[in-house]
């Protein structure tokens, strides 16, 4: 059906996104380095306001005012630095090279046009010569997601359920054969069964089409199911990044540890789930210096007040924490076992 070229690599370097507020420009994403390995699914988790969605929009150079990308680069193989794209070039890259499944994709469709007509608008916008083939591809994709393609294309948004609209959103992101796909909260506001279906579809289509995928979510359970690697964001920083099983199985950053402790288990005592104390910082309450997480951290040290922990890479994992660093050093010196 499609030509399977190699999946591209995405390199986010030193990305800083600021939002204009009455108190000046405040960073929602600060100095983020993140590499999406070709052909993998990277999950990004974090609380509301941690900068996840802003990060996702940056991949399309689509940060909305009053936000502004202040520094950094987003290199995508075969496309170059997205942040230097502008005008028509940027428009063509969106949809064609980078597919985006919108947060609350239930509302991502024009209520006055059938899905089919919106598909044709998409095709014409990207100069698709063979619109019949485009419709055929769309029907195939919809069928893969368990829907009657012809019927869906002939429907208006209000004639579809939330899960169906979500799948239509995924179809529109994939139908032009984008090799990089960004999914912003793809399963939020869906019931458990639909969530499981959508996650399975993401995984399947990802493997079938050899994509490089970024999944943004606040649902650690969802990300554990689909992602190969996991990045944890807090206060606009990536505080930990590594293979998903290792990050979840052996978290090094106290914030990741807290997140995992907060997940209620299906079996066992519910009271074992412990919420992180305190609140996530907002743009206005982000500390100006030192570690962004220190206010809520149980392993806070003196150095955390003054020095921003630098990301440290060790055996394929990245952690930005003074305590985790120390812990590791101690382990290595066998003073702490």
């Amino acid at each position, binding site marked *: 059906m499609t030509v399977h070229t190699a999946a591209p690599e995405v390199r986010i370097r030193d990305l800083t996104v600021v939002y204009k507020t009455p108190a000046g420009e405040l960073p929602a994403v600060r100095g983020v380095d993140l590499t999406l390995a070709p052909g993998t699914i990277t999950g990004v988790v974090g609380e509301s306001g941690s900068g996840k969605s802003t990060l996702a929009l940056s991949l399309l150079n689509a940060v909305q005012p009053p936000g502004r990308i202040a520094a950094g680069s987003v290199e995508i193989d075969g496309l170059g630095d997205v942040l230097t794209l502008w005008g028509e070039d940027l428009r063509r*890259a969106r*949809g064609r090279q980078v597919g985006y499944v919108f947060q609350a994709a239930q509302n991502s469709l024009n*209520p*006055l*046009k059938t899905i089919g007509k919106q598909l044709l608008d998409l095709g014409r*916008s*990207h100069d698709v010569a063979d619109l019949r083939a485009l419709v055929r591809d769309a029907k195939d994709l919809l069928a893969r997601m368990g829907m009657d393609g012809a019927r869906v294309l002939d429907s208006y948004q209000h*004639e579809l*359920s939330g899960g169906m609209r979500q799948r239509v959103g995924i179809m*529109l992101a994939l139908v032009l054969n984008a090799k990089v796909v960004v999914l912003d909260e793809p399963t939020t506001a869906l019931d458990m069964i639909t969530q499981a279906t959508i996650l399975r579809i993401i995984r399947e289509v990802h493997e079938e089409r050899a994509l490089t995928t970024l999944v943004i979510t606040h649902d650690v359970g969802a990300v554990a199911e689909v992602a190969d690697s996991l990045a944890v964001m807090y206060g606009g920083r990536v505080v930990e990044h590594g293979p998903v099983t290792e990050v979840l199985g052996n978290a090094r950053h106290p914030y990741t540890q807290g997140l995992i402790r907060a997940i209620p288990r299906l079996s066992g005592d519910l009271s074992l789930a412990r919420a992180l104390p305190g609140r996530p910082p907002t743009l206005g309450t982000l500390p100006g210096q030192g570690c962004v997480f220190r206010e809520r951290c149980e392993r806070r040290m003196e150095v955390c007040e003054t020095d921003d922990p630098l990301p440290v890479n060790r055996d394929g994992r990245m952690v930005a924490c003074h305590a985790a660093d120390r812990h590791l050093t101690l382990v290595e010196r066998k003073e702490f076992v």
Partner: protein
Amino acid sequence: MTHAVPGRPRLGAVARRVGGHLVRGLAMIWVVATISFVIIREIPGNPVMGQYESLIQKGMSPEQAERATAVLYGFMPTGNLWQQYVGYMGSLLHLDLGRSLSTPGVEVTTLIGHAARWTVLPVLAGTLLSFLLGVTMGVYAAIKRSGKLGDALALSGSLLHGVPVYVIGLLMTAIFATLWPIMPSGGPVDVEFVPGFNAGYIGSLIHHAVLPVVTYTLASYGGWILAMKSNVVAVLGDDFILAAELRGLRRGFVFRYLARNAILPLFTILALSIGMLFGGSIFIEEIFNYPGLGLLLVNSISSRDYALMGGTFLVITVGIVVANIIADLLYTVIDPRVRSGGAA
């Protein structure tokens, strides 16, 4: 209804819908006709009986007076209320609205027919022009809302919206008919032309219509631009517009998505204002001396011409009811969410 088969309107459903509207519309017209009958019959000083009695005082026989009054009002002044009501409704069915008092002997329908011509031309043209202008400028005001152009447009809307139509009208005549007389100061057409489809007559019609149309356009433009601006701003904040941009849709498509969604609520208002048009525009007709429906209504009130008054009210009612029906049906064409029965 979420999982129902995508609903295209079937012929039967459409017929049912139109039928339902017609029945409701007729019921509405009947209610207004009844109320206007009761008012004319029960108004202090009872104009019908007053007319009847004054005719007797002038020396007519009661039978003659009764017939003369019946011709005027469409129903017998004597007899019980029920008989009068049946008589009135009967003549209504024959489109007989009675005869005018102030223009003796002329049928109300004839007067209304003549006046309607002079109303429909300037008011309809003004309504459509102001709608087109206001909607277009509203879109720009919304898109450029953080710039100077947007500010200026929105301000023009607020200012014009706040100025009463008669002030605009008087300014227009003062400037373009008195200070710089390039336009006729009033009247619908120059008398020297033979009415008909000839260049002189039509040219004169248009020449005379310019000031009233411009006045009406300026007076209603403010409302449209402000309404359209706020609609566009609301739709701009909708997720599907950002989603369309993130899918790389051409600006033209995004703009159409935006405009069509924003203009939707305005269509109802447009249809209703076209219905209101049969009420005429009293100030504009007065200032520019257009013998339209608004002026007719004012004159009928000041001369206590109750038959004409009742007839004019009825025409306004029918206009609004019909416009409502058209607005409703139009909505089912332009908004698919209404078409399938309003689910989701």
